[in-house]
């Protein structure tokens, strides 16, 4: 249950977006209700002044006010919010940064580790908990996408390109990932697992201990 849920975040990036979702939902609901009330009120019984004489006043209210000023204000605020969050999530230098590689193909993931050259795992990505991790994503055949919903948003694996996604897990544990760009008949089972280790276990992993994959 909830293993792929974006609204049950387990890392800073996913947490920011989960909060964002609730903000967007509340704001949208208010706007929706506002528009519906205006719409319903149009049907009330009344003797409205008919004729173009009153149109310029109406245009000021309905078009310049509600049509232009209202959305421009709301959207400017929203855009700023989105850009600030986007900026915060972008990969930036960090003293504790860990770099891993993720190479997709139909239909497996091969993971590599900058701190342990030569080390490969298949369909299981090991990371340290509580530290930012840059995933360098690419593919050997068609387009795939790397997505661990509880940790961060997704990023595509494009042939010939390397895309870098910043992820981080707050706590040690297992987090489910899926490929989320349609990739043919095997697409449904394009799953992988991210295992976040406590600091000691991570060192052990890098040293090649206790791993039988």
């Amino acid at each position, binding site marked *: *249950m909830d*293993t*792929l*849920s*974006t609204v049950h975040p387990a890392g800073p*990036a996913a947490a*920011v*977006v989960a909060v*964002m*979702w609730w903000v*967007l939902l509340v704001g*949208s609901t208010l*706007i*929706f209700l506002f*528009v*519906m009330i205006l*719409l319903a009120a*149009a*049907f009330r019984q009344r003797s*409205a002044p*008919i004729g173009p004489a009153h*149109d310029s006043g*109406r*245009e000021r*209210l*309905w*078009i310049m006010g*509600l*049509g*232009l000023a209202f*959305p421009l204000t709301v*959207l400017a605020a*929203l*855009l700023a919010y*989105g*850009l600030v*969050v*986007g*900026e915060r999530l972008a990969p930036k230098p960090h003293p504790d940064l860990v770099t891993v590689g993720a190479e997709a193909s139909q239909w497996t993931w091969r993971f590599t580790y900058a701190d342990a050259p030569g080390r490969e795992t298949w369909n299981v990505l090991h990371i340290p908990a509580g530290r930012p991790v840059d995933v360098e994503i690419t593919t050997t*055949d*068609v*387009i795939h*996408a790397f997505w661990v*919903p509880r940790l961060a*948003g*997704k990023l*595509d694996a*494009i*042939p*010939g390109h390397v895309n*870098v996604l910043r992820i981080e897990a707050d706590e040690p544990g297992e987090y489910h990932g*899926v490929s*989320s*760009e*349609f*990739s*043919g*008949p*095997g697409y*449904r089972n394009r799953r992988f697992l991210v295992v976040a280790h406590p600091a000691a276990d991570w060192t052990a992993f890098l040293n090649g201990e206790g791993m039988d994959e």
Partner: protein
Amino acid sequence: MNALRRHRALSRIWASDPGFRGWFTTVNHNDVGRMFIVTSVFFFLVGGILAMLIRAQLATPRSAFVGPEIYNQIFTMHGTIMMFLFAIPLIEGVAIYLLPKLLGTRDLAYPRLTAFGYWCYVFGGSMLLFSLLVGIAPDSGWFLYPPLSSTLGQPGINSDFWLLGITFVEISAIAAAVEITVTVLRYRAPGMSLTRMPVLAWYLLVTVVMILTGFPPLILGSILLELERAFGMPFFQVEHGGDSLLWQHLFWLFGHPEVYIIFLPAAGVISTILPVMARTTLLGYGWVVAAAIALGVLSFGLWVHHMYVTGIPHMGVAFFSAASTLVAVPTAVQVFAWIGTLWKGQPQLRLPMLWILGFFVTFVIGGLTGVMVAIVPFDAQVHDTYFIVAHLHYVLVGGFVFPMMAALYYWLPHVTGRKRFFKLGEAAFWLIFLGFHVTFLALHWVGLLGMRRRIYTFDSGQGWELVNLISSIGGFVATIGFGLVLVDIIVNAVVATRGVRNPWGAGTLEWAMPTPPPAYTFASLPSVSERDPLLKEPRLGVGLAKGEGFLGDPSRGRRETLCVETASGRPAYLVTFPDNSALPFALSAVTGGIFLGMLLKAYWLIPLSILGIVALGVRWVWTTGADRDRGPMDVGRGVSLIPAEEAEDPPGWWGSVFLLLADATLFGSLLFGYAFLWTVAPNWPPPSYLAPDPVAAVLAAVGGLVAVAAFRLAARALEQGGSAIGWLILAALGAGAVGAAAISVMVARPDFTAHAYDATLWVIAGYVLLHAALAVLMALFLAARGWLGFLGPRRRGPVRVGQIWADYLLVVAAIGLGAAWLPGAFA
């Protein structure tokens, strides 16, 4: 002549051929518009059945109904059919049927082109339908991303059906767009200036100009991908200098404008119907028109928001995020103008209004989720999940299907001439409206819970089961509603009682004629002095039937209408339309030979088809024009006008201008692709460059300039009463020299599979060659026409048509061949 005798005389002139034959030879917009609408509804039913299969499969976890191979075809075809074979053709059909009537004229600018477009649509759609029936339908998603859709991911024939079938159908979109543009700009009732135009005509004008500039990138992309699949030209293969991202750019350069191409006509329908339902006029006509234009322009700056997660640089994403939120502003202007209109008037809850209310509820939700997904971090979570599926259905069903249902019930009395008697429509509305929201509202939530699009089944235990089951039930309820609408329409069309002429009390001209409309629409053309002529003069239609307008005298026995000056609406010249013809059907069938030849890899069919197209094309144009100068002719109400072939800017000239707009967009997309690969694709620059060829460069420059000059000298010779034949032959030679220069590029780089660079050179050179061949053909055709006396001092228009094609050849040869040779010159 009384009204009845005029009606009989005009009906004789305008009648389609009787019986079965009439279907294939009709060029009348009444017929072709209805054929478009009925065919698109048929495809809506097919797409709907596919949707039901999807919901049946996803109703329960671990469903064993279909496997991934079949499921992938089903969802690919559902999207493809709904977008390309339902939505766009339905818009074309509605526009074709309504526009001449709204504008107070008798037919669209190029009646045979209307029919040609229809048959291209039928043939292209049939290809896709065939692939679906035999189980080899496209299966890489409606966006067909390579490498999955190319030979790497789909070695079979499946993707070819999409690339070829859709491109065939796109011909009809371009054809309709060219003729609707020219119709709105030139074919209106005298006195209908641009500011007096019905608001729907404005919306359709914006829509079709968007088709002319939005569809060419997709057509180019389809051609490139088909060339890669058929001949190994590696445009999208990274190891040979291609890049799969190029396809995504070309696809969404089309794909996002496409959303607004679908929405704008629906918004135009609302702007037309809603004021009538509220017994008032539209609030802020100028603002609404400006908003439609702004939406059209802005929609071309949004395509990257479908590509947020492809690793586009952060600053680029910020720009597109801003543009994507900004596009909500003109939409808000329209929504509040509509609500303000309701406040201004006295809205009545009749059936079209009910559908418009359904539109408001649904579309506002879709718009708000649209703003959400314009925010990049949020999109990165919900991209490719059911949140997007829900969002896009709210926008497309709420923003297109519901307004079209309003349009259906609003104009049904016009099409059938009957009053709705059995009231099944209201029940159908509630079934569809509630069924729709039950289907899609909760799907937002499973998307947030991580359910991806395009999975053929899912496991239980993730909180998705209940929502999916409810969604499937809602889907079937909505389907029953659509079935009920169909029954309602058929029953009311067949057995309901005769209705009155303008049942809604509308102000636009389509109600100033008998219903169902006669083939000639208006017995005489109205003279327009305000935006809603029927509000001031409700009995206008009676006067027109009595012949009180222009062209009320059918004694010349030809299909006639007027062209007006674009801005003012002053009458400019008299147009004679062609008669019924099987040429459109034949030409589209022969055009199909090219697509069939590519599909079956029977390449010998292609040159044969091209010969056939040239022969039929010559036959087509041959029937226009006159073999002597006729001078001004009486058009009624004391006005005399010159015939079209004696005008400086005949309809063919206007059509060429807008066809060239689409053509130039295609060429621009090609240059964009070249530059994109050069700067973004990993394996660039290519191992070696094309060596510049001074001889070919001189040949192209001199040839192009000679062609351009010779057309002008030909026109001048005609004006002075001389012969143009010598100049036209010289123009053909000049254009031929350009073609030879283009061939030299191909000869110099024979292996087009080596690198995307070589493949691109071939396509650029091929494009120049094609336009050189067109210019040669036109020059020779005109020379032959001149020989037989079809050109004269007053009849110079055809030469001017050829001249702009020669001008265009010079431009594309200079840019295209320059782009081919310059890198080698600098290397």
